C-alpha cells in the first residue's frame, strides 16, 4: 500500500497563515492524493483543532508532547523510540551508513532522511539492502534534494518495493516534490488514488500567498508556462493530437495547452492564432510575411508575443498589403 506523508506544514512556522488558510491547505493536499499531513506544533496550535477528515502526523521535539497533543495518528521524532505511533527519524547521509540501520530494528516505524546521492550509486542495491536490513519495520523514505534528484529517488523507492515516502509541496522542505511524485506514480504504475489534481492551481496560489515565494514558470506539474508551446514542430503536433507532445493532459492538473507565438513559431501555429483572434485567413504568402515580421519583432525584443502584440502586428501587415494592392 503506497503512502505519501506531506510535511509542508512543518515548514511554515516563520510565515504561519490564518487558521482558515491552514485548513484549506490541508484540504487541498488530501484532495491531490496525500495520505497523511505532518504539522509542526506551531501550525497545529494555529489550527486550534484537527479537521474531521484525514490522518495527521505531529512533528515533536520532546516525547512528552505525545501526551500534550494526544489526537494525532502518528508522531515524528528525531530520536530512537520504540513505542507505538512514533515514527523515528534518522539521518543517513552516505550509503556506507546504511549498515547502522541494523541497530534500529526494534523501531516499528522509521523515517530515513537523506540519501541524496544514491542516483550516482547503485540505487537498486541500496534500496534492496535497506529493506532487507529492517524486515519488520515500516520504512518511510524522505530523500533530500541536494542534487535535484529527490523526486526520482522517492519514486524509485516505491517502484523497487518501498511503501512510504515523505515529500513536500513544490519540494519546499528540500525533499521530493509531492506533486511530482504523485504524477510520476500515476504515469509509471497507474497509481491513481481516487483524488482530484485539478485543484493544483488553487494549491499553488495558496502556497505562493502563504510563503510570498513565486513558483518557477517551468516548475514541473505546477509551473505557469509548462503547457505553453512555441516551437513550430511542437505546436503542429499539439494541434494534430495533444498526446504527441504531452506526457499527460493539462486538464488533469487544471491547466490547458496554449500556443504561444514567437521566434520559433511556424505557419500552422500562426494560422491557428489568427483564427483564434478572429481573423479570416489570408493567402499563404501573407502569412509568410506575418511570420517573418514575428521573428524579427521577437528577436529584437528578446521575447515571445502576447495576444495584443500579435493582433497589432497582423493588422499592420494586412494594412501594408492592402496599400500595396490599391496603390
Amino acid at each position, binding site marked *: 500500500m503506497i503512502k505519501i506523508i506531506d510535511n509542508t506544514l512543518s515548514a511554515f512556522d516563520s510565515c504561519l497563515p490564518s487558521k482558515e488558510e491552514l485548513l484549506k491547505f490541508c484540504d487541498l493536499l488530501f484532495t491531490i492524493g496525500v495520505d497523511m499531513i505532518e504539522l509542526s506544533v506551531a501550525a497545529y496550535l494555529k489550527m486550534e483543532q484537527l479537521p474531521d477528515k484525514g490522518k495527521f502526523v505531529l512533528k515533536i521535539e520532546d516525547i512528552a508532547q505525545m501526551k500534550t497533543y494526544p489526537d494525532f495518528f502518528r508522531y515524528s521524532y528525531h530520536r530512537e523510540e520504540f513505542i507505538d505511533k512514533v515514527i523515528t527519524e534518522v539521518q543517513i547521509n552516505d550509503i556506507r551508513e546504511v549498515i547502522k540501520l541494523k541497530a534500529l530494528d526494534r523501531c516499528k516505524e522509521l523515517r530515513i532522511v537523506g540519501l541524496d546521492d544514491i542516483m550516482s550509486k547503485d540505487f537498486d542495491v541500496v534500496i534492496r539492502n535497506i529493506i532487507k536490513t529492517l524486515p519488520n519495520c515500516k520504512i518511510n523514505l524522505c530523500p533530500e534534494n541536494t542534487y535535484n534528484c529527490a523526486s526520482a529517488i522517492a519514486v524509485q523507492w516505491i517502484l523497487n518495493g518501498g511503501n512510504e515516502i515523505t515529500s513536500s509541496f513544490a519540494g519546499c522542505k528540500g525533499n521530493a516534490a509531492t506533486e511530482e511524485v504523485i*504524477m510520476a506514480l500515476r504515469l509509471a504504475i497507474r497509481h491513481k488514488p481516487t483524488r482530484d489534481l485539478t485543484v493544483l492551481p488553487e494549491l499553488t496560489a495558496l502556497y505562493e500567498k502563504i510563503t510570498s515565494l513565486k513558483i518557477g514558470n517551468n516548475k514541473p506539474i505546477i509551473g505557469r508556462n509548462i503547457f505553453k508551446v512555441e516551437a513550430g514542430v511542437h505546436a503542429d503536433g499539439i494541434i494534430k493530437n495533444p498526446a504527441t507532445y504531452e506526457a499527460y493532459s493539462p486538464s488533469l492538473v487544471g491547466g490547458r495547452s496554449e500556443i504561444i507565438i514567437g521566434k520559433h513559431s511556424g505557419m500552422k501555429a500562426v494560422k491557428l492564432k489568427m483564427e483564434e483572434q478572429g481573423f479570416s485567413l489570408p493567402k499563404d504568402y501573407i502569412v509568410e510575411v506575418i511570420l517573418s515580421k514575428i521573428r524579427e519583432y521577437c528577436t529584437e525584443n528578446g521575447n515571445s508575443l502576447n495576444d495584443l502584440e500579435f493582433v497589432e502586428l497582423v493588422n499592420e501587415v494586412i494594412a501594408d498589403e492592402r496599400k500595396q494592392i490599391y496603390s
Partner: protein
Amino acid sequence: MKENKYIVDTTLRDGEQSPGIALSIENKVAIAKMLDEIGVYEIEAGIPSMSEKEAESIREIVKSCKNSKISVWSRMNIEDVKKSITCGMDIIHIGVPVSYVQIYTKLKKNKVWVQRKILECIEVAKSHNIDVTVGLEDASRADIGFLLCLIRELKKAGVNTIRIADTVGVLTPNRTKELIATIKSHTDIQIEIHVHNDLGMAVANSIIGAKAGADLIDCTLFGIGERTGNCNFYDFVHASESIFNFAMNKKQIKRIEELSYSILQGAL
C-alpha cells in the same frame, strides 16, 4: 577510475524554444563562446531552416568557437537538411519521430516511410561530407524492436551517434537504465541522452543514462527548454562529478549562468 562523459549543450536550440525568450545573434554568439571556452563537447546552435537570421547566427557561432563541435537541428526533410548544410557546422542532427503516436498521428505515415526518409536525408548530408547524428524523438514511448532495427540501419548508413530523446519527459530511472542498457547491448552505436523534466527527473535520468552507457549528455543552462525544460547543466555536473570526469567544473558553469542570466531569465 572515473569514466569520461561529454556535454552536449542545447541551450541555444531546445533551451531557446522555451516561451519567453528569443535570442539575438549577439546573444547566441556570446553564450556559445562561453560554452566553447569551458570545454563543452558539442554546442547545438539552432535550427537553420527557421530563418535566414537564425542561419546567420549559426555561421557566426561556427566562426567564433574554437574547441566545441557545432551542431544544428534539422527536421527529417531534405530541403531543411540542404539549408542546414549552408551553415558550415561540424554536425547536422536530424530528428526522426519514432513512437507510434508521432509516426501515425503527427506525420500520418508508417515505419517504412520513416526509415526510407531518414536514410535519404542522411545520404544528402553525407554527400556533403557532414557528420550526421540522428535524434530518435519520443524514444521513451517507442517500440524497442523498431528502435533496434532502425539503429542498425542508421549504423549501416554511416551514423555513429544516436540521440535517445525522452521527448515528453516520462522516463523514470529504472526505465532509463533498461532502455539505454538494451540499446547498448544490442548495437555498437554511441549513445547521447536527451531528457525532459516533466516529472522533475531530468537530472536523475541523465545520470542513470550515463551510467548505463550514454557517453554524451544533453544539458541546458538553468535547465531551460520546452515545457519544464531539459537536464540542468550545473545540477548534472554537481550530482555526478563524483563518478564521471568532465572537461569543466561546477564553478565554471555557475559563472556562465551568472553572465547569461539576464539573457535567459525570460525562460525561468
